C-alpha cells in the first residue's frame, strides 16, 4: 500500500519537475551584479527543445569575473565551445553525455548555456545555427 502511494506521489510530481530551475541558473542567480534568466523549452525546431540559461553581466567588473571563471579570452567578438555539464569552463567534445553549449558575447557581456542531453538536441542545435546563418 505504501509503495503504491509513493508511485502515485511521484507521478503527480512529474509535471512540476519538468520545469525545475537548473544547476547553472542556481549557481549564477544569487550574484548581485549578474542578471540571470533560464528559458526552459527553447524551441530549436518543431520537436526539439532545450533549456537555456542566460547570464548578463551588469558592469565591466562582473563581466571580467565571469570571463575569468569561464576562461574566456579576448575583448571583442564572440566565442563558443562545448563545456562539461558540471564544469562549463572545461572544454570537451560531444560524447553522448549531458553537456553545455556555451556562447559568450563580449559586446553583450552575455554568456548563454544551452543544455544538451541527447544526440538529437546536439544535432538540432547545430542545424538551427546553420539554418539561421544561411538566412542572414
Amino acid at each position, binding site marked *: 500500500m505504501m509503495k503504491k502511494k509513493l508511485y*502515485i506521489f511521484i507521478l503527480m510530481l512529474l509535471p512540476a519537475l519538468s520545469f525545475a530551475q537548473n544547476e547553472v541558473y542556481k549557481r549564477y542567480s544569487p550574484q548581485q551584479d549578474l542578471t540571470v534568466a533560464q528559458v526552459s523549452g527553447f524551441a530549436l525546431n518543431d520537436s526539439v527543445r532545450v533549456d*537555456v540559461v542566460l547570464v548578463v553581466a551588469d558592469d565591466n567588473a562582473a563581466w571580467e569575473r565571469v570571463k575569468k571563471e569561464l576562461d574566456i579570452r579576448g575583448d571583442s567578438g564572440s566565442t563558443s565551445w562545448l563545456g562539461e555539464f558540471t564544469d562549463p569552463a572545461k572544454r570537451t567534445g560531444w560524447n553522448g553525455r549531458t553537456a553545455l553549449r556555451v556562447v559568450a558575447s563580449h559586446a553583450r557581456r552575455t554568456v548563454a548555456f544551452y543544455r544538451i542531453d541527447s544526440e538529437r538536441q546536439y544535432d538540432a542545435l547545430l542545424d538551427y545555427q546553420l539554418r539561421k546563418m544561411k538566412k542572414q
Partner: protein
Amino acid sequence: MTENQFDELWQQVEARKYGRMLAAGYPAWKRNRRRALTVAAMLLIVLVTAVVTVSTLQRPSASFEKVYCNRVGTSDSQWVALAAEMLME
C-alpha cells in the same frame, strides 16, 4: 455430523452474521475504503495529466517557453529572443 463439526459450523455462521451486521452500519465506500482511495488517486492522476496535456497543446509553440529570472520587471519574450540571438553570434 458430529457435535464438534456442528459447533465449528455454527461458529462460522455466527461470525459471518456478525460480520454482516457490523458492515451494514457503514456506507459502502467506507467498507471498501482502500479500493475507493485507489480509484480516487487514479482519477486525480488522470485529471492532472489531462489538464497539463490540454494546456500544453493549446499553447502556441512560440510561447511555450517557461522563463525564470532573478530580476523583476523583465519580459519573458526578451529572454527568448536573446537565447535565439546568442546562437547567431
